[in-house]
């Protein structure tokens, strides 16, 4: 998906009109590798489905025999019992085999959902920042949750394909027996059935169209509700309750019309099937009745034909469904492949160096980066162990972008960043990153306890944890939490204040005593006193640390050894607070 499209993804998503044929081939090609390890299951479905179908298709032939013999005089109850038992036996076999087939199909759908999800997750978790700049969270989530689900791609991967297989077998089986009974009557019934499949495809497309519109109406309604309820204070303060209700009524009204429109096409489609069968039955009885009267076929033949008509309806629907779902699946596959094929730009070189011992020097040399516009232009500055360097400037000056480049979340497009005279890419990526503590602007907490969020998968002892808590000024908050460090946070956990989240993230960054600490405006929600204590504690905690910090606070800037003042991606001035206090932009930004 091109950038423009993903940026405006609040607009209704229009599925790409992939040609059904090419799209289907590509979809099956993408699916094949997932089937390869499942050869056993594949052969099972290929071999057992025909059996299940056969047991089903056979029954009308026996019923036919019963009816034919009932009219004769040589029939005895013993013969009847035999035939009825045969029907029961076939019924049971069909039950057993079809249950197996259906269960294997269902379980395989789920298996694929899981397999797709794992494969995509593995790819996604390694993708570079540029991917996440380009695709919004909701967009990526949809691909990993909705597109691959057992309702979409997962369903199509097994059920979609094997229901088609079953339908084709069913049709072959029915046609085989029907032709044996009477070819002319068979031809007469086959025609309306083909029509059923066509009708299904056509009207499903329309239904799909309406159901997309109804989905859109639902998401409009949800976003209206969310934004209004989030703003309830403002709403009440400005006495807007009545107006908001009216506006909501209009949104609901729209949804009403969409839903009714959908119901009109969808129920027409649904009702039609049973009517098709009834009309087919009517035709059979008319034409077949004539044949019976003329003595060309028996009454039993007619009854068998009638049974086959009912058996043929659903396979027709399945064939239609294969193409409809196949189209949806090919759109999903395309969306999934977009994620899979995204280049993994940031990797560790094969002969990467370990991180050097001793003091570190970080040099930014003419670093440039552009999105649509230049975001960083020829930025150069240096920082070394023991120093605190602050990046200053208005919003959009490029501060966070520079910080992201230090752990190589993003690579400069030109220029380079040197660590002890060697480019960052020369070092082992995980060694580089694990030497750093990084706290982003909006701290990410995960559904786990506070302790787990701070330890974050690293094995460190209790003393280290306590120390990190103290430096991050988190100790004071702990009594507030019901279960202390074991309190659950994140989506299902307790609500935390912005400052508490920031301090947990700071503790997480500090706990392994990083050699480089990167703080991206992460103290904005701390009050000045807490922040002051934090800085004091930090310096005694790791004296030789290299600290890069983005901040809007004058007090923090004053503490820095050096300030790099940025304007629209360019370095405007460098120096400490006193030196910069004569600089016009600096004055305007921080001293007015």
């Amino acid at each position, binding site marked *: 998906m091109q950038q423009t499209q993903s940026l405006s993804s609040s607009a209704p998503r229009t599925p790409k009109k992939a040609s059904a044929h090419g799209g289907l081939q590509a979809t099956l090609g993408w699916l094949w590798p997932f089937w390869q390890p499942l050869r056993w299951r594949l052969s099972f479905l290929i071999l057992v489905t025909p059996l299940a179908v056969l047991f089903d298709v056979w029954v009308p032939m026996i019923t036919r025999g019963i009816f034919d013999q*009932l009219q004769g005089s040589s029939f005895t109850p013993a013969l009847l019992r035999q035939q009825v038992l045969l029907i029961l036996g076939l019924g049971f076999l*069909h039950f057993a085999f079809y249950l197996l087939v259906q269960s294997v199909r269902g379980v395989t759908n*789920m298996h694929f959902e899981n397999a797709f999800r794992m494969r995509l997750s593995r790819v996604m978790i390694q993708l570079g920042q540029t991917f996440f700049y380009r695709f919004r969270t909701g967009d990526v989530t949809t691909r990993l949750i909705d597109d691959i689900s057992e309702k979409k791609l997962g369903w199509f991967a097994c059920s979609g394909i094997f229901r088609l297989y079953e339908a084709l077998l069913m049709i072959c089986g029915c046609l085989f027996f029907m032709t044996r009974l009477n070819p002319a009557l068979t031809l007469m019934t086959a025609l309306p059935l083909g029509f059923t499949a066509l009708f299904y495809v056509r009207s499903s497309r329309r239904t799909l169209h309406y159901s997309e519109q109804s989905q859109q109406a639902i998401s409009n309604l949800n976003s209206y509700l969310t934004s209004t309820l989030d703003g309830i204070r403002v709403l009440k303060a400005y006495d807007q309750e009545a107006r908001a*209700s009216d506006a*909501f009524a209009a949104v*609901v009204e729209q949804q009403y019309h969409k839903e009714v429109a959908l119901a009109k096409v969808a129920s027409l489609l649904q*009702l039609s099937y049973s009517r098709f069968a009834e009309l087919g039955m009517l035709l059979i009885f008319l034409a077949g009745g004539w044949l019976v009267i003329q003595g060309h076929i028996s009454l039993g033949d007619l009854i068998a034909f009638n049974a086959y008509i009912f058996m043929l309806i659903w396979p027709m629907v399945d064939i239609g469904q294969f193409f409809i779902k196949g189209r949806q699946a090919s759109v999903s596959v395309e969306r999934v492949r977009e994620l899979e094929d995204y280049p993994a730009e940031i990797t560790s070189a094969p002969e990467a160096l370990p991180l050097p011992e001793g003091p570190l020097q970080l040099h930014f040399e003419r670093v440039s980066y552009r999105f649509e516009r230049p975001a960083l232009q020829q930025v150069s500055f240096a920082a070394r162990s023991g120093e605190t360097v602050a990046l200053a400037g208005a919003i959009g000056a490029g501060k966070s972008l520079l910080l992201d480049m230090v752990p190589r979340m993003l690579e400069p497009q030109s220029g380079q960043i040197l660590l002890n005279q060697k480019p960052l890419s020369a070092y082992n990526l995980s060694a580089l990153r*694990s030497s750093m503590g990084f706290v982003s602007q909006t701290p990410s907490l995960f559904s786990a306890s506070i302790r787990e969020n701070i330890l974050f998968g690293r094995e460190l002892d209790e003393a280290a944890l306590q120390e990190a808590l103290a430096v991050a000024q988190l100790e004071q908050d702990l009594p507030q939490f019901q279960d202390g460090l074991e309190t659950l946070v994140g989506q299902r956990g307790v609500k935390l204040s912005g400052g508490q989240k920031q301090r947990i993230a700071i503790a997480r960054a500090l706990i392994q005593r990083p050699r480089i600490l990167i703080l991206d405006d992460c103290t904005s929600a701390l009050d000045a006193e807490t922040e002051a204590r934090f800085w004091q504690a930090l310096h005694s905690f790791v004296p030789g640390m290299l600290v890069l910090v983005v901040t809007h606070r004058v007090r923090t800037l004053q503490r820095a050894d050096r300030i790099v003042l940025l304007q629209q991606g360019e370095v405007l001035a460098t120096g400490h607070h006193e030196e910069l206090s004569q600089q016009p932009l600096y004055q305007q930004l921080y001293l007015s």
Partner: protein
Amino acid sequence: MSETHATLPSDRSLVQRMLPWLRPHTGSFALALGLLLFSSGAKMLGPVILQQAVDRYIVPGNFGGLARLLGAYAVLVVLGFVANYLEIIRLEQVGQRLIADLKQRAFAHLLKLELRYFDQQSTGKLVSRIENDANALKVLFSTVITNILGNFVVVLGMFGIMAWQYDLRLAVYIVGLCPLILIAALLFNRWMKSLLLRARKQLAEVNGLITEIIQGIATIQIFGQQQRFIARVDRESHYKYGLDSRMTVFFNSFFNSLFFVQTLGVALVLWFGGQMVMQGQLSVGSLILFMVFIRTFFVPIMFLSSQFNEFQKALAAASRLFDLLDQPAESEVSATENNPAPSLPPGPYTLEFKGVWFRYSPDSDWVLQDLSFVCPAGAHWAVVGPTGSGKSTLISLLMRFYEPQQGQILLNGIDIRSIPRQTLRAQLGLVLQDVIFFPGSIARNLLLGQELSEAEVQQTMAQIGLDEVIQRLPQGYQTEVQEGARNLSEGERQLLSFGRALLRKPQILILDEATSHIDPQSEARIQQAMQTLLAGRTALIIAHRLSTIEQADGILVLQYGRLVEQGSHSELMKARGVYAEMRTLQMV
């Protein structure tokens, strides 16, 4: 889900509450019922016509009669189809109408609730209450009538035809299978319920985990935790796979068993019916009729059994919705009913807090304790204090979002509780830390229902330097505010919320840390705007900026909900009290 069981009222009382809503649609329901009876009748006649075709025309060899009968049948099929379709559409319209009304009603009521209610509920939950719960109810209106009633009519009718017109014994054999199926279905549903619930929870778990990972991807990568999170996804996803697999196997077993019961029915009919035909007690056509009946007979029963869970969901949804509708709305005049609401004289107003005590609930701590101060008309007072000292609560009380447990808040000597909320709030201009936009154009967001000419709006915006910014947008004032106003910068958004307050020409301005998120450059503009905004108005300002606080006419210093100091900046500095200490520590 779990919350619903505690307060689940009886199904009967729920139905009783819903009946009044259905009443206006009695006509539609009656029409739908008529259509339903007709189409059900047509459905039942089908097999009878087949029987007649076989026994009266095909076996004796009368093609002319057969053609006429089938012609009549074709007409019947078409008419039945039309009736069925009209009935479904009619019910769908009524059902959707009811749902739409219910949503509108629930939302309107929700907005009238006290802020306290919103404190306790997450937005997501409330959205789901209005959207999902209302939709779940639809099943009760449309499906119940079409399927339960319709199928009941068909099943009963078929039994009647089979028993009285053809053969009672054979009919009883078929119908005898029904209770068996229904009991099995009930047991199956009960048994599946917990698994279903677990599977749904696990789905939410996996989705939540993935969302969390995507949102925190940078953190995960920097800290090198990819493998650990992949392992977590693997674990959760695999567990989901296990639950889903079990479910699909159970469902398949159940439905395939039902089909097998149908085969059993066919065998029974063929066995007994066949014997009766041989003995001349039953015609061949009647045997065909029984066989067709079996097919039409079992489909509705299978459908019914798949709907149990839907009904339970719908009833749970209904009780949650009623719970929402039962919440008391903000009362108009609460404490001082003896004091009839006077009309508020024109401002400016002197604002007085008199011995105000407040806490959010009887078992929590006091947030404000014995708060008293007077802010003279036209004065600008800053409120300072550490986080949690009660600054924002003070403002919420003034807005009458909450009522104090003790004490009074007075505007020019009038207790605000005796002033209708609308009148009171119209005089107060509130600018909050978080800027909220509603769907719609910028103009709509600025005006929020006021009727002002475009020139007036432009003039006011120009005062705070915002006119130029808005004019630069693609459609000027008519530019749509996108989701979360992402097409505006943080500074512009904050300025817009100032503009919104300014357009109301409020007598009292209330600023709640309105500039804390803004970069200094935008803040400079806002500072200028503030001068315009504050001129000639009483103002209460919660602020971090030194300049704002120093320029204030007075400063209220709060600590743990108590007013510990008040006075001008220089007075307080001289007093060398809490404020002076805070200043030296850079705490404000």
